[in-house]
C-alpha cells in the first residue's frame, strides 16, 4: 500500500469517528429549544410530550416574579406574547433576573402535566452591551 493511501485510510477513520461522535452526541444530548407557543402546540399534538427535558426561551411577564427567599424558591410566568405559563424554580437566580424591563430568559426543565414548568436552570440574558433607548425627555427606558 502506498503511504498516501494509508494516510487516506487513517484520515477516513478519523473523519468517520468524528462524524459518528457528533451524530451520537447530538442524539443523546440534544434538547428541544422551543418558544411557549411551540411547546403548547407540541403538547396538543402529542399527549406524551410532558416531563421531557427541554429549554424554553421567552420573556418574563412583568410583575409576575414572586420570590420566597426562605426557601430560595422563585415563581414567575413566561410568555412569548401569545402563550404563557407559570414557572417554578428552586435555587439561585442570576442578578440580571428581574421583571423590571421585559427581560429574556431561557428556562431549562420539564413541563409538568399540571401546566407548570418545573425549571432546573434559569438563564437570564446578561444585558451586556444592549443599546439604551433614548427618548426626547432625557429619560432612559
Amino acid at each position, binding site marked *: 500500500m502506498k*503511504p498516501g493511501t494509508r494516510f487516506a485510510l487513517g484520515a477516513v477513520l478519523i473523519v468517520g469517528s*468524528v462524524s459518528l*461522535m457528533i451524530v451520537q452526541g*447530538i442524539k443523546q444530548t*440534544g434538547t428541544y*429549544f422551543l418558544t411557549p407557543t411551540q411547546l403548547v402546540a407540541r403538547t396538543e399534538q402529542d399527549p406524551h410530550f410532558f416531563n421531557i427535558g427541554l429549554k424554553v*426561551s421567552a420573556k418574563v411577564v412583568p410583575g409576575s416574579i414572586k420570590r420566597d427567599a426562605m426557601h430560595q424558591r422563585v415563581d414567575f410566568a413566561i410568555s412569548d406574547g401569545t402563550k404563557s405559563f407559570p414557572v417554578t424554580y428552586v435555587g439561585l437566580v442570576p*442578578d440580571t433576573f428581574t421583571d*423590571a424591563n421585559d427581560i429574556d430568559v431561557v428556562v431549562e426543565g420539564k413541563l409538568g402535566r399540571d401546566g407548570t414548568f418545573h425549571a432546573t436552570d434559569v438563564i437570564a440574558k446578561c444585558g451586556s*452591551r444592549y443599546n439604551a433607548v433614548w427618548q426626547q425627555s432625557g429619560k432612559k427606558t
Partner: protein
Amino acid sequence: MTLLGTFALWAALLLGCWSAALALFGPWQRRPALAVAVTRGSYAVCAALLVATVALWKGIFAHDFNIEYVASYTSRNLPTYYLVSAFWAGQKGSLLFWAVILSIFGALAQALTSARHKLLLPYVAGVTNLVIAFFVSVMLFGGANPFERLGFTPPDGRGLNPQLQNPGMVMHPPMLYLGYISITIPFAFAIAALLARRLDTGWIIAMRKWALASWLFLSIGITLGMWWAYVELGWGGVWAWDPVENAPLLSWLTLTAFLHSVMIQEKRGMLKRWNVSLMIGTFLLSIFGTFITRSGAIASVHSFTQSDIGYFFLALLLVSAVLSFTLLYTRWPMLEAEVQLESLVSRESAFLFNNLALVGIAFSVLWGTLFPIISEAVRGTKITVGPPFFNRVNVPLGLFLLLLTGVGPLIAWRKASAANLRRQFIVPVASGAIAAAVLLVAGLRDFYALTALSLAGFVLGTVAQEFYRGVRARRSLHGENAAVALAHLVARNRRRYGGYIVHVGIVIYFVAFTGLAFKVKKEIDLQPGATDSIRSPFGHTYELTHMGVSQYERLNRQVSAATLEVRRDGKRITTITSEKRQYLDSFGNPTFEPSTEVGIHSDLREDLYVVYAGSPDGTERARFTVMINPLVSWFWIGAAVLTMGGLITMWPGGPQLRTPRRRLAVQSGYGVPLAGVAE
C-alpha cells in the same frame, strides 16, 4: 468633534475604496509610481481613522453626552480607565476600533514587509483596504455611526454595564479584536499570492509573523475571556461552550492547524492548496464569529446589541467566501504539491493528523453551535446542544492532539526508521508512564484525567529531551556552559524552541482543564458567627465562619459585602469577601440591576470560590455558594508560558533563511539543532 469624526470616516471610506480599486484593477505592475500610490493609500486610510479615533475619545473624555454613544456607555462618575475601554464597550465604538486597528496593521504590513515581497504588497493593501471600507460602510450606512448626536443633551450618561467594569474586561475585548483583526493580514497575503500567481513559499514567509501574532492575540484574548467569566459571572467555571465563546475558538483552531501545516509546505513543498484553504477558512470563520455574536441569529447568554448590522457581516461572509474560493479554483493547478507523502511514520504525517484533529474539533464546534439553526431549518424544531455534547466529542479529540504534540517533534521528516523511533521515544514514553504510575498510586481513577495527565507527562518528556539534546550538542560543539548553551540554543532556533515552550503552555491548559472535572460545590446558609465546612478533592477541609455583612458606598456604587473567615485543616488562612453591588449614577439613582462580585482565594492547588447570594430574611444571615475549583491557577500560568513561547518565536532578528533549505531541515528533524539553522 463629531463633524470631524464623521468627515474622517468618509475620508477613510473614499481613500480605502480608491486604493483598493487601484491595487486590484490598476496597472501598477507596469507603473511603479502607482504601486507607491497604493501603499500611500494604506497610510492615508490609517491617518483618517486615527483622526476619527481621537475624535471619539475626545467626546468620551469631555463627557459630551449629546453624542449618543458617549451617553449610552459612560457617565460622569465612571473611573478613567473605564472611559478608555468605553471606546469599544458598545457596538458602534467597536466597529471603529476594528477599522482603525486594521488600518494600523495594514500600514504596518506595508512598512515592515521585506522588499523581496513587493509584488504582493499592493494586493495586500487592496484586500486590507476593502475590508476596512466594509467596516466604515457599516458605520456610515448601517446606522452605526459612533458620532451620531442626540436631539437633546442628557444630564448624565447611562454608565458602563457593571459586568464590564472589571479589569479583565478592559483587556479582553481589545485582545480578542486584535486577534480577529490581524487575521485579515495573513489572509490578504494569501489572496495576494493567488492574485499575483506567486504561489511558492514566499507569501508564507512574508506573513508568518502576522499569523503568529494573530494566534497569540487570540490565545490571550480567549484566556482573558475565560478569566473574566470565572471572576465575574459567578458560576465558577471558565468555559461554557456558549456561541460567543465558540466563535473565537473556531478561528483559533484553524489558525493553529495552519501554523503547523505551513511548516510542511516550507520544508517539503506539500499541502499548498490546504494551506491557502485554511487561511481563507480562518478569515471566513472570524467574520462568521462576528456575525453570530452581532446578529442574534443564535441564542447566547451574552446578548450583544442585536441589530441589522449582523446581516452586513453575513453579506461580507458570503461575498468573500465566493470570491476567495473562486480565485483559489482558478489557481488550483499552480498549487500542485512538489513531493508525495513518503511514509505514514513521518513528521509530515503527524502534522497531517494534527491538522485533521484540529479541523475536526473546529467542525464539531461549528456544527454544535449552528445546530439550533440547522435543526430548525431541516426538521422544523430547534434543538440545542450544550457542554455535554462538546465535551463528549472534543475531549477524545483533544487528547489525540495532546498525544500528537508529543509525537510530532520526535519523529523524523520523510520517513522515520526504527532506530530513530527507539532513540527518540524511550525517554518521553517513560516519563508518561511514570506520571501514570504516580497518579495511580496517589489514587486517581478517573479514565480521562489519568489519560490526560499521562499524556501531559509524555509531552513534557518530549520537550525536555529536545532541550536537553540541543544543549548537549551545543556544549560539545562550542564548549559553552549549560546556561549559555540554553540561551544560544533558544536564540538561534527561536521558532523551534519557542514552539516547544508554547507546547508546554498548552500542556498546562490541559492539566488545568483536567482539574475542573473534580470541582466541588456546596450551598451554605449561615447566621453571623456560624460555621460550615467543605472538603476539597485534595483532601483539605475548609471551615468557613460568617463574619457579618457590611454596607458602604463607593464612588459609583452601593456595596453590601459579606465576609467569611477561612480555616484550612484547622489553621486560619484568610478571609474572603463577596459583594452585592448596586451601581448608581452621579445623582445617586440606581443604574442597572444589582451585580455580584465573587470572592476567590487562590493557590497553585485549588481555588476557594465564594459567591454571596444575599440574605434570605433581610438580616445579616447570609447564603453563599461555595466552590472548590482545583488547578484553576494553572490556566493563567499556562497562558503566561504560552505567551512567552509565542514571543520568543516571533522575536525579530536572528539568523534568517532566505529560502527553505530542505536538506538541512531533514537533518535537524533528527533532533540535532545545528548552529545557525533556524527551524
